[in-house]
């Protein structure tokens, strides 16, 4: 289908992009790969007045180190994320989850920042960012601000990004110590969105689980942390029984939707199974 008419801007710097957004009128959409935006425009679910295409803003691409953090440019493609050596070293969970996003073609155009700013509850990366306590650096006309992941995802397809603002980079704390990670994704066909998925990062110490961080995909309008399970795992023995017991509370505090792939009660069941599997794998069991 053909999108409704729209104005188009293709800035080359962040400043130019902010300018284009400011001048774009009432309803500006940012094209950050377009793997979600273009289809919804073609379906006329979205009919923005102006589309600001970030594909030429090269300063937003790439991954670098900054002290204790990894800094991932918002326009870094999924394909670049998957093969980035820093991510492999310090945040392999991101690479593992990104590798499950859609298909190869989509991963070569879609971007890390675009997926996070889109905040699709069925998307894989928000729960990963949440589990890793990532921080979101947002640029606006009045400078930059940093928002923690817990505050970034506000509601269904809604983030802390205000009108006129732009997500420019994501800072992910480097994990030190003996961390294991796993992304357990459940979907019916390879290219589909997650019905439910669980991102787990587990730090082991002396045969125990010292710390577990668990992000849940598609268990509510925003990504969630499985706080009850995390609490139960802190200091628990790294045994299948202890993990299974802790995973039983994975659905606490969630509010999953019902759709033709899964009704809410089945999602609540699935998240327990997937949490058990993700934590077990991350704990090296």
């Amino acid at each position, binding site marked *: *289908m*053909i999108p*409704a*008419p729209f104005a188009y801007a293709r800035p080359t710097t962040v400043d130019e992009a902010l300018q284009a957004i400011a001048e774009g009128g009432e*309803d500006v*959409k*940012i*094209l*950050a790969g*377009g793997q*979600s*935006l273009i*289809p*919804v425009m073609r*379906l*006329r*679910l*979205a*009919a923005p007045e102006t589309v600001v295409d970030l594909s030429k803003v090269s300063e937003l691409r790439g991954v670098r180190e900054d002290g204790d953090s990894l800094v991932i440019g918002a326009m870094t493609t999924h394909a670049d994320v998957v093969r980035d050596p820093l991510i492999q070293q310090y945040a392999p969970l991101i690479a593992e989850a990104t590798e499950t996003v859609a298909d190869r073609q989509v991963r070569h155009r879609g971007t890390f920042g*675009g997926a996070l*700013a*889109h*905040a*699709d*509850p*069925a*998307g894989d990366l928000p729960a990963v960012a949440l589990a890793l306590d990532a921080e979101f650096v947002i640029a606006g006309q009045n400078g930059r601000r940093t928002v923690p992941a817990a505050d970034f995802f506000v*509601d*269904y*397809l*809604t*983030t802390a*990004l205000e009108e006129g603002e732009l*997500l420019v980079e994501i800072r992910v704390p480097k994990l030190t110590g003996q961390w294991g990670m796993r992304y357990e994704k*459940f979907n*019916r*066909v*390879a*290219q*589909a*969105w997650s*019905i439910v998925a669980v991102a787990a990062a587990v730090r082991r110490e002396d045969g125990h689980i010292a710390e577990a961080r668990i992000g849940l995909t*598609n268990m509510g309008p925003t990504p969630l942390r499985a706080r009850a399970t995390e609490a139960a795992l802190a200091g628990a023995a790294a045994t299948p029984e202890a993990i299974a017991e802790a995973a039983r509370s994975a659905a606490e505090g969630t509010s999953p*939707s*019902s*759709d*033709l*792939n*899964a*009704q809410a009660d*089945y999602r609540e*069941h*699935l998240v327990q*199974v997937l949490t058990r599997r993700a934590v077990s794998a991350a704990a090296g069991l």
Partner: protein
Amino acid sequence: MTVTEDAATLAPAKEVGQPRRRKEDARLITGRTTWTDNMVLPGMLHLAVVRSPVAHARITGIDVSAAQQAPNVVAVFTGRDLAEEQGSIPCAWPVTPDMVNPGHPSIAVDQVNHVGEAVAIVVGRSKAAATDAVELVDVDYEILPPVLDMEAAVAEGADLVHDQLESNTSYHFVFDAGEAGTGADTEQAFADAEVVVSRRLVQQRLIPAFMEPRSVVVQPQGDNFTMWSATQIPHVLRVMLAMVTGVPEHKLRIIAPDVGGGFGGKLQVNPEEVLALLLARRLGKPVKWTETRSESLMAAHHGRGQVQFIDIASDREGNVKGLRVRLLADMGAYLRLITPGVPALGAFMFPGIYKFPAYRFECDGVFTNKVPTDAYRGAGRPEATFAIERIMDELAVELGMDPLELRRKNWIQAEEFPFTTVAGLEYDSGDYEQATQKALELLGYDELRAEQQRRRESGDPVQLGIGFSTFTEMCGLAPSRVLGSLSYGAGGWESASIRMLPTGKVEVVTGSTPHGQGHETAWSQLVADQLGVPFEDVEVLHGDTAVSPRGMDTYGSRSLVVGGTAVVKAAEKVVAKARKVAAHLLEASEDDLEFADGKFSVRGTPGATVGIQEIALAVFAAHNYPEDVEPSIDAEATFDPVNFSFPHGTHLCAMEVDTDTGMVKIRKYACVDDVGTVVNPLIVEGQVHGGLAQGIAQALYEEAVYDADGNLTTGSFVDYLVPSAADLPHFDTANTVHAAPGNPIGAKGVGEAGCIASTPAVVNAALDAVRHLGVSDILMPLTPERVWRAIHQGGDGGDRATAGTNAYGGAQTESTAGVSTPASSLGGDR
């Protein structure tokens, strides 16, 4: 070259049987060809269809003024504007004399009966202009209650789809073997039976989901019209459009250029084809319409859609005694080309490969407020095969017998062919035992059974099951007299002609229009062998009623069996005509001539030879040819089969079921198909793979889901799950060969085999894995949720929630209406 070479070693290898790579693929795969939507004509206008967002309503007003005034819009038409000339989409298969057909307007006039039905058409100078103006057409609807569930639709006091009719039942079709004289009394057989097993099975609605969307271009020239359409049936379409629109048949030329798949979904006279022709006539300008994927999913016809009540009777030893089938078949809102005939065609296949003494079939065609159903790969036969192969497993469980042993006990033995079944069909040839043995070996059956046992004993969360489908199907549609006896509106013959060009090259014209099957390659192989010319010297022409004036097109695994036979028969006539010329040129008697490897030679006279390609030049020059013949060796032939052909095979599926999540995963799939003589093993393999993908998809992935208001919630490929190669297992395939006696090629047809056979094998395998946990049925598709519920909550997995996924911003909700709403302004940056 030495003079002592053995003639036999010089002879070119036979083409038939060679795994030739398809000569048409390069242009099809790269898209550098004449797909209909690639057509651009001077002055061409573009059509966009305004479609109903509601399932059932009276149209109380349409305001097109804003759309008419939109930039680059030429005109806007409503149903009222076209009511006098649009006629009705034809239904060629009135299965009973009293079948009720409410008529099928191409564009709704007073009432809409399914979501996606056309209510207005915008004509624009560009596709974008027409599309933009769709949103400006304002339609007022007075909502009527939607009729969506077949069992509710046939209940007393049900709301009516068509309020001018007395009920929602279009027809009641009965085949009773006792009455037909092909079997014993069914009621008596059940009364006398020691064991009776009854089940209610559901065939969900499917969407053909061909790769190339439907597309049509019409060019008026004086009082002539040329239509390009992405259709399977240019010849049938020409006849039907002439009847519907009154454009005389000889003023109408239909071209199906390269067509990107159909699976029965393009075996149709589409409303949009009628509308494009009417508007080209009215406007005097070329017009084009190409659907979006969303339009295709909701407005192109669907397939399947049956509730099956099936009863099987046997004695305690497992000898089957009777079969009774009662169907509710979903017609959708209207009858399209062969909507009512699809379940009726299946009527004859429910007995499968088994020797039932008694059989009764009844089917009610039921109207619902959904898009009409019609042919989809297998068309009636997958539904029948599913039912019989599922109920055989259920009977085996009831009797405590091995499902394979039960099948063996009842299937037709190899020495019993030809065998007339209780449905009155004469099965031509085959050996079910041989195919089954080979399939068991391919699967590694014994090892998998042992593993299944181990997993059960250890209580493994991942259980293993093995499912059988020992199937047959009727192909080679069809003997014209049989079609007549079933009230079908046309014949089942096929036509071919061969033109011998002066340079010795060969043009083969086929009436069987391909849409991806590989006719050009296979027909070239047939002709190369028949005429003894190189494969590369043969060109196959098709799909244009001006080039190929006679044809019945492609569906029902008929092309090679019927169309290929017509080609062979035309080639035989070419050789016969060339023989007269050869005798003249060689100054020999026809009786003394041998024809081999493209050359006529005089027996006992070495060196006295003339090639058929040389003869082609000789008759072109026409300087020297026999006085009693015309100077041409071209020929045409029409072949009308006397019987169907009956491919068969054994399909085995080994399935892993994760009892924690309900996820099913095919561990191994092995199938041995007997499709008769194989002309091109590569094409056969490809057809089997594609068929398996679609059959497995019915079992596991695909379903056209409507919500309680009649909205199609699987309105995009986000929610209508078509599996890709990543989701399917390796297929272990093989063939046995029992040539079909009904045609000179010996082919039986392969286009639908994989799709027909695989679905019950997959479902039987999943059930075999979890039957010990108390599961006896799971509704298709076997979503993980349904499997999990069946295991942990009992029942058949139950109804799915109807809402589309929230991914993508809930793409399904508004794509059905094709308009943007306030809810379109979703948050977030994308």
